């Protein structure tokens, strides 16, 4: 199949960007979206042009490296799918695709479709951990975890920090990401001692990084390739309220 692409090209963080038009020819329906871009890049390199820069690593939908907007949707139109696992059989000959990086002031463009997502790392560094005394691993069954809590923590831990929630949110808020991290650790017994300082620290860092606020639009949940639910934002909100009134620190 043959596709018409409008791809965002930007040389660096401070540079002006622009859309460039490309034609992707002989696209096989078995290619992944990234493989289609690889083919376009081979042609660009052969012509002596700069290839389109995009983030990718595992190409198995689990590492969280890849991701950009395709026609206004993070990771493209398929639910629960990262762009590396989006295959060209979902498109038809003659389709016109607008490909843009995640747009958020907190995520400056590094080059073309690659954005700097280190603000998400800093949110985790602010409180997304459990302080433990290192040493030999304790006996696994010493701490009993109720099945429901284990399932909740596992579901929240599915987040791969790809940034699609920020990209989808009309407010460029990272609350789904932060909510997933707060829920993941807050659901487990090991996470209890730091539960209420964690939520305050992580929300403070989220705000300091310049993300917008959550207005419960729900676009994040629709866009999330890992089915993270806005219910986790509800848990974050409840934890923050309790941190202020029931368990105030200091």
């Amino acid at each position, binding site marked *: 199949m043959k596709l018409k692409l409008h791809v965002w090209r930007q040389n660096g963080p401070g540079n002006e960007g622009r859309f460039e038009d490309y034609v992707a020819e002989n696209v096989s329906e078995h290619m992944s979206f990234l493989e289609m871009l690889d083919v376009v890049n081979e042609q660009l390199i052969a012509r002596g042009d700069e290839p389109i820069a995009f983030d990718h690593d595992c190409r198995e939908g689990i590492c969280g490296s890849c991701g950009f907007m395709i026609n*206004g949707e993070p990771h493209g139109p398929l639910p629960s799918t990262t762009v590396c696992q989006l295959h060209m059989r979902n498109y038809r000959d003659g389709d016109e695709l607008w490909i843009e990086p995640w747009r*958020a*002031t907190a995520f400056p463009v590094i080059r073309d479709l690659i954005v700097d997502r280190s603000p998400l790392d800093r949110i985790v560094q602010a409180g997304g951990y459990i302080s433990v005394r290192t040493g030999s691993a304790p006996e696994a069954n010493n701490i009993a975890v109720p099945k429901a809590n284990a399932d909740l923590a596992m579901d929240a831990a599915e987040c791969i920090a790809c940034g699609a929630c920020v990209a989808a949110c009309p407010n460029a808020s990272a609350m789904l990401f932060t909510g997933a991290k707060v829920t993941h650790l807050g659901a487990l017994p090991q996470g209890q001692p730091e539960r209420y300082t964690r939520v*305050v620290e992580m929300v403070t860092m989220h705000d300091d990084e310049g993300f*917008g606020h959550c207005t419960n639009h*729900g676009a994040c949940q629709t866009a999330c390739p890992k089915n993270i639910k806005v219910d986790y934002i509800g848990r974050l*909100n409840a934890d923050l309220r309790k941190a*202020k009134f029931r368990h105030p620190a200091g």
Partner: protein
Amino acid sequence: MRRVFSLWDSTVGKKIMMATTGVILIGFVVGHMIGNLKVYQGADAFNHYAEGLRTVGEPFFGSGQLLWIIRIVLLAAVGIHILAAVQLVMRSRKARAIGYRKYEGDMVFSYASRTMTWGGLIILGFVVYHLMHLTFGNAHPDFVHGNAYHNFVTGFQSWPVSIAYILTMIPLGFHLYHGFWSMLQTFGATNPKMNHVRRPIAAALAGVVVLGNISFPVAVLAGLVGY
């Protein structure tokens, strides 16, 4: 009190303030609609109710005192609600300084969530007009102090005024629908067993308030409420 003020430090805390003041305002809107249903019992019942708003709380409070306390609480709630909203909206505008060329708007759960800012501004403008129309009377062609029924009937006998009232109920309905659901989310009232009823409750609340309010101008224009 220091803890309450510290809510202002974060976006989530500001949302908690908005949700709390929103609950107060939802309570007012519901009470206002239910109170006005007395218009269907005739002029005496309605005027008695209107007068009762001033004398409520007696003999503990003097005439109008409790009413003014409630008005001050409502004004403070409106002020905090709007201040938090303005600050948060400005912040989110900055959070995406460069917009998308293409954006799939269907990703959001409901149309209502995207109308909160404009809907809120329309409601604010309407409230100012509504106060001037039926409370102060300076935007009313034939205002008689102390005769709420007369002001109600003659006010709504004007087609443009009634249509403006009816049209404003549409953004109010969306605002209540998303606001109520959003309030539950902000308070963290998420329970897997109850989550499926949150949307229907929000829709029912918005529907009852909107239909009740729309019935007033319609009843006057249809001649069901008059002299």
